[in-house]
């Protein structure tokens, strides 16, 4: 009965590879987000989708591309991974102002 789930939980990959992280929510929420927590533990918004439409796109390299096949899913695809992409990525969803977070995906780029 997990509300917001992410796969995989851990991802270790080489520089230059392309990888995807998946997010699913079963809360019936309309809006989903991706946040990045960097090495300094600072959580920052990356993207937001409302009903499959992009509504927030912060200054994120265009190597990052979110995709929302339906309102319960928001996947994050990353091309040409760089060392600086190593971080924890959190998915979240909301129907109002309170956001509910997934467990995070720990990405390590070697």
């Amino acid at each position, binding site marked *: 009965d997990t509300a*917001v789930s992410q796969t995989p939980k851990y991802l270790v990959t080489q520089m230059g590879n392309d990888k995807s992280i998946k997010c699913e929510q079963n809360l019936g929420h309309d*809006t989903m*987000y991706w*946040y990045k927590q960097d090495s*300094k*533990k*600072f*959580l*920052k*918004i990356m993207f*937001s989708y*409302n009903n499959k439409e992009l*509504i*927030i796109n*912060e200054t994120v390299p265009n190597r990052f591309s979110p995709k929302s096949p339906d309102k319960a899913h928001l996947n994050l695809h990353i091309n040409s991974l760089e060392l600086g992409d190593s971080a924890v990525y*959190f998915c*979240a969803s*909301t129907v*109002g*102002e*309170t*956001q*509910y*977070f*997934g*467990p*995070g995906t720990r990405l390590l780029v070697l």
Partner: protein
Amino acid sequence: DQQVKQNSPSLSVQEGRISILNCDYTNSMFDYFLWYKKYPAEGPTFLISISSIKDKNEDGRFTVFLNKSAKHLSLHIVPSQPGDSAVYFCAASKGGNSGYALNFGKGTSLLVTP
């Protein structure tokens, strides 16, 4: 530029006492404030929130106070319990067309000792 600041990276409190976690913000457009609790290797868990039209919100042992003129909010935990040991994040949003994106502080690590 960081619009939400938690200036105490850590706090240690004895079990049964009050824990007070502080948060300051710079953007006067923020109208909704939240506290999240985070354990290692888990996602942030929503704890309590407050709208800018209020100055206090209480939920069990947790109370959030908002001082809009000072752009300051605080989270009080009374009485503190060892299970409260975690990192606490303050967050703020502007609502409306901003898509409710949360602006987070860097967190305060709370340790409650028996």
